[in-house]
C-alpha cells in the first residue's frame, strides 16, 4: 500500500499506538516477574530496560530513515531481492501474529478467571474480534484515532491505584540492591516482554506525517511506558510484602480487590472490563500489521481479505483449541526471545546491512 495523505497519522497518534502496543497484557504480571527475578529490587531494572529500549528505538528510526519514505519491506526487496523481502514480511507477520494471539489469549483467560468462568472462550473471542475487525480494517489513521480515544477514556485508571497507598509499607523497598547488582541485571530480561512493540515502527513509520519527529516520539512513548510500569510496580511492592509479590499471578488485578468503596464492592470487575480497551491496543494494531504484511506477501491490493481470513481462523481455531494459563506462559516465554531478536538484534543487523549497501551502491542510493 502506498502512503497517502488520507491514511497518515499524527505525532500523538504515533506515540499512542506504540505505547499501546507496549503496555499490554504483560503489565498484569510484570511486578511478579520482576519480584521473581530480583525481589523487591525488581523495579530498579525498569530504568535499565528503558535505556535498552531507547537504544533500540534509535536504531529502528535510523533504519527507517535510510529507507527514505518507502516501507522497509520494499527496501529489503530492492536490496536483497523479492523473495528475501517476502520472507522478511512473513517473519514480521509471524511475529505480530504471536503478539496478537498472546494478547487475545491472555485477555480472554483473565476475563474467564475473574469475570465469567463458565463462558466459552470462543464466545469471548468472537465478541472481542467484532470491534477489532472494524477498527483494524480502517488502517493506521483509524487505529491512531482509536488509540487516542482509549488513552482519553482510560487515563484515570492509574489514579485509582493511589487508594492503596493508605496501606503502603515504604520500608519494603529498602535496602536497594540488597542482593547486589546481578539480580537486577537479570530482571532486565523480564522487562523485555512487556516493552515489545517497537517493531511496529517498521510498518507505521511511512505513515507518520512528520518524520523528523519519529525519534522524539519514540522517546516519549518509551517514557510513558516506563513511567506506567514503574508506578504500578512500586505500588505493588509497597503494598505486598516482599515474598508475597511473587504469590499473585496478576498482582495488578489482585491489588484492586483490596480497594473498598462504599458504592461498589468488587471494583476489579469494571476495571478488568475497562482494561480490555487498553489491551485491545495490542491486538488491533497487530492485526492490521499481520494482514498488511500478508497482503504484501500475496501481492494483494488491500489488507481486507487477509484480515477476514485471520478473524475467521482465530474464532474457529479458538472453538477447537484454547491455550491454558501455562501454555500462555510458554507463549510469553517464547515471545521474550523471539521479540528480542526481532526488535533488538534484527534492526541492528538491518542497520549495518543498509549502511554497507548504501556505501557500495551509490548509484542506486535509496
Amino acid at each position, binding site marked *: 500500500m502506498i502512503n497517502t495523505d488520507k491514511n497518515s497519522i499524527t505525532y500523538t497518534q504515533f506515540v499512542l499506538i506504540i505505547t499501546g502496543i507496549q503496555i499490554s497484557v504483560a503489565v498484569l504480571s510484570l511486578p511478579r516477574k520482576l519480584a521473581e527475578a530480583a525481589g523487591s529490587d525488581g523495579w530498579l531494572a525498569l530504568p535499565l530496560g528503558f535505556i535498552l529500549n531507547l537504544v533500540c528505538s534509535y536504531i529502528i528510526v535510523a533504519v527507517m530513515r535510510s529507507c527514505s519514505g518507502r516501507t522497509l519491506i520494499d527496501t529489503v526487496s530492492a536490496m536483497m531481492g523479492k523473495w528475501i523481502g517476502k520472507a522478511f514480511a512473513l517473519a514480521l507477520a509471524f511475529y505480530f501474529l504471536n503478539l496478537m494471539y498472546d494478547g487475545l489469549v491472555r485477555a480472554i483467560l483473565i476475563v474467564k478467571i475473574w469475570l465469567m*468462568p463458565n463462558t*466459552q472462550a470462543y464466545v469471548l473471542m*468472537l465478541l472481542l474480534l467484532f470491534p477489532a475487525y472494524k477498527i483494524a480494517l480502517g488502517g493506521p489513521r483509524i487505529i491512531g484515532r482509536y488509540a487516542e480515544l482509549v488513552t482519553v477514556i482510560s487515563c484515570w485508571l492509574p489514579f485509582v491505584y493511589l487508594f492503596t497507598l493508605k496501606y503502603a509499607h515504604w*520500608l519494603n523497598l529498602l535496602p536497594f540492591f540488597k542482593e547486589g547488582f546481578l539480580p537486577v541485571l537479570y530482571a532486565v530480561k523480564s522487562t523485555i516482554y512487556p516493552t515489545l512493540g517497537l517493531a511496529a515502527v517498521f510498518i507505521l513509520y511511512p505513515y507518520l506525517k512528520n518524520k523528523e519527529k519519529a525519534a522524539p516520539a519514540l522517546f516519549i512513548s518509551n517514557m510513558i511506558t516506563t513511567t506506567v510500569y514503574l508506578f504500578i510496580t512500586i505500588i505493588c511492592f509497597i503494598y505486598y510484602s516482599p*515474598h508475597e509479590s511473587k504469590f499473585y499471578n496478576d498482582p495488578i488485578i489482585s491489588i484492586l480487590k*483490596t480497594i473498598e468503596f462504599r458504592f461498589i464492592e*468488587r471494583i476489579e470487575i469494571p476495571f478488568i472490563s475497562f482494561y480490555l480497551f487498553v489491551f485491545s491496543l495490542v491486538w488491533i494494531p497487530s492485526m492490521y500489521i499481520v494482514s498488511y504484511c500478508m497482503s504484501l506477501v500475496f501481492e494483494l491490493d488491500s489488507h481486507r481479505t487477509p484480515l477476514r481470513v485471520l478473524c475467521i481462523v482465530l474464532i474457529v481455531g479458538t472453538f477447537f483449541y484454547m491455550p491454558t494459563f501455562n501454555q500462555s506462559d510458554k507463549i510469553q516465554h517464547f515471545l521474550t526471545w523471539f521479540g528480542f531478536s526481532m526488535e533488538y538484534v534484527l534492526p541492528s543487523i538491518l542497520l549495518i546491512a543498509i549502511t554497507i549497501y548504501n556505501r557500495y551502491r551509490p548509484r542506486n542510493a535509496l
Partner: protein
Amino acid sequence: MKQQSHPFASLIVIMGCLILSACGDQLSLENASTPLALGIDLDQDEKFHFYATAPVYSKNIKKKSQEITGEAESLRQSKALQDSQTAGSVQGRNYQVLLIGRHLLQYNDWFPMLDVIFRDARNTITDRIIVVDGSVKELLYLNPPDQPLLPIILRGMVDTKTTKSETYSTTAQELHRQFMDKGVTPYVAEVKVVNKQIQLKGSALLNERGKYMMSLNAQETILLNILQKQADPGFSLSYLIPDKPQTGPFATNMLSFTGGKVKTSIKTAYANQKFKFDIHIKTTVGLSEHIFPIDITKDSPKLQKQISSLMQEQIEGIIEKLKKHKIDPIGLGVYARAYQYEHFKQVEDEWGEAISRSEINVKVDLTIGAMGPVK
C-alpha cells in the same frame, strides 16, 4: 455491493451480541444465597466445622437470618453441604466478616484452609477477620432480638473501633500479608460473648504460623497501634495517677486524655549478636478527664512526666510479653530488613526467636496541649 452488505453485517453483529450477552454466567438473585459471615472452628472432637449466616429477605419470616453449618474437610469441599441447606446456591461474594474460633487457633498452620478465599477470584478478600473467644457456634446462633444482623454489627464494631485504634480491622488480604511477611506476626480483632451480648475485647496476637499467643485489651491495642505507627488522632487513654488520693468507691485518681498526632520513630541497630530497636514516641494530647484537682498551668511539666512514664511502663510491659511469646506484631522485622538486611537475612526464618533476644528501648515524650474548657 459493498454498500449493500453493510446493513446486513450490522444485523449479524447485533444478533450475535444479543444472543451472546450475559453468556453462561448469569445468576438470578432468587437463586443465590449470599452469606454475610463465614465462621470456622473445631468441635469437641477436633473436627473442622464451617458456619455461615445469610440474610433472609421475606416479609413473613420473623427471623431475619438463616444459619448454615456442617462438618467438613475443607471450605470448598463443603460447597454441596452448604448448598443443600439453602434454597439457592451459596455464593462467597459478599462476606463481611470471617470468624475464627479460639479452639482452632490452638493449632499451627490453619491459614492454608482459607485458600479458597484467595483462589476463587470471585470471593471478596476484604472481609474482616475476627477471632472469637469462645465458640463460633454460640456467637452465630446468638441472634439477639435487639440487634441488627450479626455480620453487620460485627463489621460495624470492628470498623469504627479501628478508627479509634482500639482494635484492628484486619482484612483477609491484610492477614495474608502478615502471614507472608517474615518481619511481622499477625494481629486481628477479638470478640467475646458476654451475657448474651457481643463484646469487642481488643486484639488477638498470633505467632507466625497462626497459633494464638495472647490477647490485648482496648487500651493495650491503642499502644500497639502507636508502636505500629497506625494510631490515628482521637484515641483515648486512661491512667491512674499514683500519688493522687483515692476516696471511697470512686477512682478519683483517674486521668484520661485524647491523643493527637503521634510521631513514632524507630531506630534499628545491630550489636553483640542481637538487634537493638530504639522507639521514640512523641505526641501532644488534650486532657479529657481528670477527677482529682490539679493546676495544669503550674503542674503540667510534672504531670506530663508522670503520664509519660506510666505510658512508657505499660508499653514496656506489652513488649516484654511480646518477647516472651516470641511474636512481633509491631513489625520490627520490617525495619530490621530495611536497615540491617545482612543480619536480618540470617534470622528471617526464626524471627520470633531473634525478637525475643533483641533489645527494645522505648521512650515516651508527651506534651499536654489542652486542658479542656474547664479549669
